[in-house]
């Protein structure tokens, strides 16, 4: 949102967030190392590092993946989403230490380039039990790298929100790759029921949360009803919208948020220009629609971010017949002024 890009726009919450991340990661490594040294003291230092960071990375990945649906199911989780990119970058660092050590330990100092070795030292690509699982981890690490490297808002702007979003959706592919990496790799040789169970439960939790959220999302978005003359669509009663909040409707396959504030109604496209956050789940603060994800703001009557910011969202025209709200499904050019319609019924 800023015009100058800084590494991190620090604020109190981000600092707390990062302290929790660092503390949890250190705690994990300490416990892992401690338990190993007590119960399996004959390990080697490289194996200790590889396993501590590999298992840390996959646990962090699960936490990252559940934050999205959790915050959509209950807005009180929203602060977790706010700085999730730091969690993502931290997870990448853990995965990188794991992958880097593995790459060095198992593939370097040999007769070929270590990366070439990852792909060619085991050619059993057509076997499940013998599959070269390192390849899966390597590809996942590349995706995490791309995501971590482009996690800054600078790239968001320069890649366009859509491309960026697509890139970051690859996290699900990476998750699948990592799960296969573990089940076709380490677990083929060195696992007890407990670890397999832990990851199976993790997978179920991630999958279920996503499914439940998806269902809720669909339910929350109201379909528009019968047509009025000139293509106006009937949406809802004024009273169904809370003050300073919105309701989301699907209009011509696009989601639109209708806000009620100060006895007025305005409609804008539901998708935030930042990372595509659901504006209709946001709130009017200081007269601006405020995105629930990272707090980008837009004026309700024209979809423009207040100066000095320059983001613009498409606005829609509304009409009131009695207490019934209608919307014109034609999206206006982004940033077009639309006079809010008064609705002083309550």
């Amino acid at each position: 949102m800023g015009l100058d890009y800084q590494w991190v726009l620090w604020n109190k919450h981000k600092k707390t967030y990062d302290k929790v991340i660092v503390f949890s990661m250190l705690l994990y490594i300490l416990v892992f190392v401690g338990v190993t040294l007590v119960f399996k003291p004959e390990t080697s230092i490289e194996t200790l590092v590889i396993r501590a960071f590999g298992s840390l990375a996959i646990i962090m990945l699960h936490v990252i993946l559940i934050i999205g649906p959790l915050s959509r199911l209950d807005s009180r989780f929203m602060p977790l989403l706010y700085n999730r990119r730091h969690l993502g970058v931290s997870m990448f660092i853990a995965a990188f230490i794991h992958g880097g050590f593995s790459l060095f330990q198992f593939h370097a100092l040999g007769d070929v380039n270590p990366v070439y070795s990852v792909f060619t030292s085991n050619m059993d690509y057509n076997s499940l039990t013998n599959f070269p699982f390192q390849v899966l981890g390597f590809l996942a690490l590349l995706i995490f790298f791309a995501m971590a490297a482009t996690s800054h808002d600078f790239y968001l702007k320069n890649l366009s929100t859509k491309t960026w979003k697509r890139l970051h959706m690859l996290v699900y592919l990476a998750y699948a790759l990592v799960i296969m990496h573990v089940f076709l790799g380490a677990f083929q040789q060195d696992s007890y029921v407990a670890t397999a169970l832990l990851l199976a439960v993790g997978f179920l939790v991630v999958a279920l949360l996503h499914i439940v959220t998806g269902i809720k999302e669909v339910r929350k978005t109201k379909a528009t009803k019968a047509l009025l003359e000139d293509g106006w669509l009937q949406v809802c009663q004024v009273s169904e919208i809370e003050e300073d909040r919105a309701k989301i409707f699907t209009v011509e396959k696009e989601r639109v948020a209708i806000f009620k504030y100060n006895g007025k109604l305005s409609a804008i496209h539901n998708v935030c220009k930042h990372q595509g956050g659901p504006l209709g789940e946001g709130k009017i603060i200081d007269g601006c629609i405020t995105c629930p994800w990272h707090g980008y703001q837009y004026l309700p009557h024209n979809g423009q971010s207040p100066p000095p910011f320059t983001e613009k969202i498409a606005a829609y025209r509304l009409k009131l017949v009695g207490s019934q709200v209608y919307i014109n499904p034609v999206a206006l050019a982004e940033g077009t002024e639309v006079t809010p319609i008064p609705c002083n019924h309550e």
Partner: protein
Amino acid sequence: MSKKDEFYVGYLDEVGTSTRKRLKRFVVAVLLLVLVGAGIFAFSQRPFKNSTFELTQETEIEGIYHESPYPMLKVNLVDKQFKNVILLGFGKSNADPYLQDIKAMAGDIMNKKLKVKGNLIYYNGKTLIQILKPENVTIVSDDVIPLLPVKTVGVDIFEGEVIDPKCYFGVMKPGQGKIHRSCAVRCISGGIPPVLATTDDNAISEYFLLTDLEGKPINEAILPFVGKNLRVNGVVEKMEDWYLLKIDTKGIVYTHKTNVYAANNSCQSDCASLHFREAFARSH
């Protein structure tokens, strides 16, 4: 703010009480996950072998150099007891690059007494040494000491896994199996002698240096079989504390034995697999 109306904006300092409570609970849950996760992952590791790699400590050994067919040093322990120490280079390579200087200087070093300084690797009665510098190999005497007697034991079938002895006997844990396969492939491809590690029903292990039918190194041909459970047949020879197995890779069969975790048994010299005992009996 009422519970329902709480709305978090990251760059504003205020956070509603209900939100704050929820976040605290989440952090507690994460910390629990950290403790349980780390505990489970760490505790669920298979036991490691008590193999040793003296990474930071150098030892000097003296013995007779021979290639049978892999470079080794026959070291005199106590009267008439010998140990054949496998010579290795840095990383995933054999000793050849470190022997070139001395070969250039002294000509043929076969069956001559050498002094070698390096890092020892040992487990289960077998010893290897990693040489890091050509200067660490010196010639002690130009006398040629007669060749080692190699006894033919017989033909037999063994089940086990082809491992690279450098990692298996000390450098890596685990130094075998699926996790380690790629590394073993690199090591053997880099010239480290391939070894068949067998484990019998009593978890007693025996090791065989693999060669082709003519007794030549088999590094290249064995690569596709490394790190998997196999049934191998061949001609067994005994060379003091090492067995050699001359094989044809065409005769190798994959097996599905899952127990390749040779536990902490230390078996010294002659405790061979059951198969092997039979073979031994037959040949005598």
